[in-house]
């Protein structure tokens, strides 16, 4: 099987061209073709000699994957299904909104984290995505030219696949890649602390934390990761980081009726986030099969926002998008996955 050029960083391309006996500058030409010119065949790299193109073609392919399915919501949201290695599937959600258009990308096939409220977790973990497979979701999007933002909030925990996620960010933000400002990209995590610290050092993209409760004991009941990386340690790492003026941290907070929506939670949120320039995004919970959790009503959600705002915390309620097309992340790919996955033994 041929190796894929798409998803390689400039330094990896330099290694390849040197190995193949080509001048080093050819790597820059290849990255230009891959990430700026949307080619699909090596033979389209017209400023490479025919000999070099043929050499490359013997061992490599471009490696792009077009989406195999799309579902379009009445609100304009589109959910794309991309093929991944091993006959698996991943999802990306394209969310247009006035002058913004955001793509929510996946970083893994399935997820190992097992959060109680998450549909992707029901798949279990199916595999890691390569940097190429992550960036392909952006590059092969039919609406690529309209994109203003990318969020790593699709399937998987980005910091459980940090190496490939960092590579994908390098490709997105380097001049030799797409040249995007890191301020257009947000990576979301449930709080794998060592990987988060490495990300904060090596990337300039924004960070979002899936918080969902300010209390350790609450988090432990819905997010198994709490047993390994407890919230106080996570908050300590966040408070200790020098955020500067450009970089943004936000907290995702899915509201669950009777679980994390009390005044006690408001008070504790104000306490733990004190001194941090941040935002809380409140999310409505869209029930998934067999879930014991419920969403509070609209009035309670608005009241929760107002209580947080009155404590001086910038709080927004994220609009629910694409509800008519299985908006909850993982639903579409789970449906596809069931067709070709054997049960796992335990």
């Amino acid at each position: 099987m041929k190796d894929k050029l798409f998803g390689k960083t400039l330094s990896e391309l330099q290694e390849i061209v040197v190995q193949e006996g080509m001048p080093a500058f050819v790597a820059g030409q290849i990255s230009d073709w891959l990430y700026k010119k949307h080619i699909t065949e090596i033979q389209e790299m017209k400023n490479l000699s025919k000999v070099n193109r043929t050499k490359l073609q013997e061992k490599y392919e471009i490696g792009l994957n077009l989406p195999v399915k799309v579902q379009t919501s009445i609100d304009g949201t589109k959910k794309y299904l991309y093929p991944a290695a091993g006959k698996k599937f991943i999802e990306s959600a394209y969310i247009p909104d006035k002058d913004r258009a955001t793509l929510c990308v996946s970083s893994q096939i399935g997820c190992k984290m097992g959060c109680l409220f998450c549909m992707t977790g029901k798949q279990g973990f199916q595999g890691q995505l390569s940097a190429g497979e992550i960036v392909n979701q952006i590059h092969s999007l039919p609406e690529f030219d309209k994109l203003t933002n990318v969020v790593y909030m699709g399937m998987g925990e980005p910091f459980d696949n940090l190496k490939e996620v960092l590579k994908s960010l390098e490709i997105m933000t380097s001049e030799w890649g797409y040249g995007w400002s890191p301020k257009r990209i947000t990576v979301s995590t449930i709080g794998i602390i060592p990987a988060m610290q490495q990300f904060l050092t090596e990337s300039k993209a924004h960070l979002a934390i899936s918080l969902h409760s300010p209390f350790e004991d609450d988090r432990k009941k819905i997010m198994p990761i709490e047993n390994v990386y407890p919230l106080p340690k996570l908050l300590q790492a966040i408070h200790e980081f020098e955020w500067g003026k450009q970089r943004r941290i936000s907290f995702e907070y899915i509201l669950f009726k009777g679980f994390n929506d009390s005044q006690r939670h408001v008070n504790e949120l104000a306490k733990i986030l004190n001194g941090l320039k941040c935002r809380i995004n409140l999310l409505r919970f869209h029930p998934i099969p067999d879930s014991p959790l419920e969403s509070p009503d609209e009035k309670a959600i608005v009241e929760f926002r107002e209580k947080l705002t009155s404590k001086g915390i910038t709080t927004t309620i994220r609009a629910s998008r694409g509800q008519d097309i299985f908006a909850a992340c993982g639903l579409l790919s789970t449906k596809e996955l069931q067709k070709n996955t054997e049960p796992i033994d335990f």
Partner: protein
Amino acid sequence: MSTKDGYKLFQANVLKLEEIATGVFVLSYKKLHEFIAGQVVAITTDLNDESRLYSIASGVREEEVRILFNVVPEGKLTTQMSQLVEGDQIFISKPFGKFTGTKEPAYWIAAGTGIAPFASMFYSGLASNKVLIHGGRTLSAFYFRNVFEVYFDDNYIPCCSQQSGQGVFKGRLTEYLKSLNELPPEHKYYLCGSAEMVVETRDILIQKGIPFKQIIAEIYF
């Protein structure tokens, strides 16, 4: 010293490496730090490589720390760990984590090497009032079975999905749980295994009326 993934590590030397089933090992080293039964440590054999987390499988009052691991196909670290000999250098973090045992009545439910934290709880004196359910593909996957059988008697239920054996439930542990008429809703349910096992087991427990707040899970990752 620190690894590239940020853990502060300490040097330890291998006391013993024993293969207890094909591709499954118990690695022991002299205890450097106190811990709570159920905690994990980060381990690597090379400071230039990323470390991985493993649950401690030994008791809190023992002089040595034991780690249960299986060799992951194409996994660099576990392959290196499986080739260690007495005296070899390894690097370990302080124990951490909150998947820790208590004296409350509980079900301990594990798949494969997910038995490790429960072994630690067992050897730390937390096994009374507990039911231990262990799932594995083959009969060789019931690590520490001889000890558990003696102590737990009928409250130790090995569930084997691919082989039959005396005293072993034939089927996956999820099938065993489904076969039970009722489970006490006031007990705690500790789950340790892969994401698939934890998610499926948790769903079954919730369907059987166990409040999700009573379920505590740890997932390999």
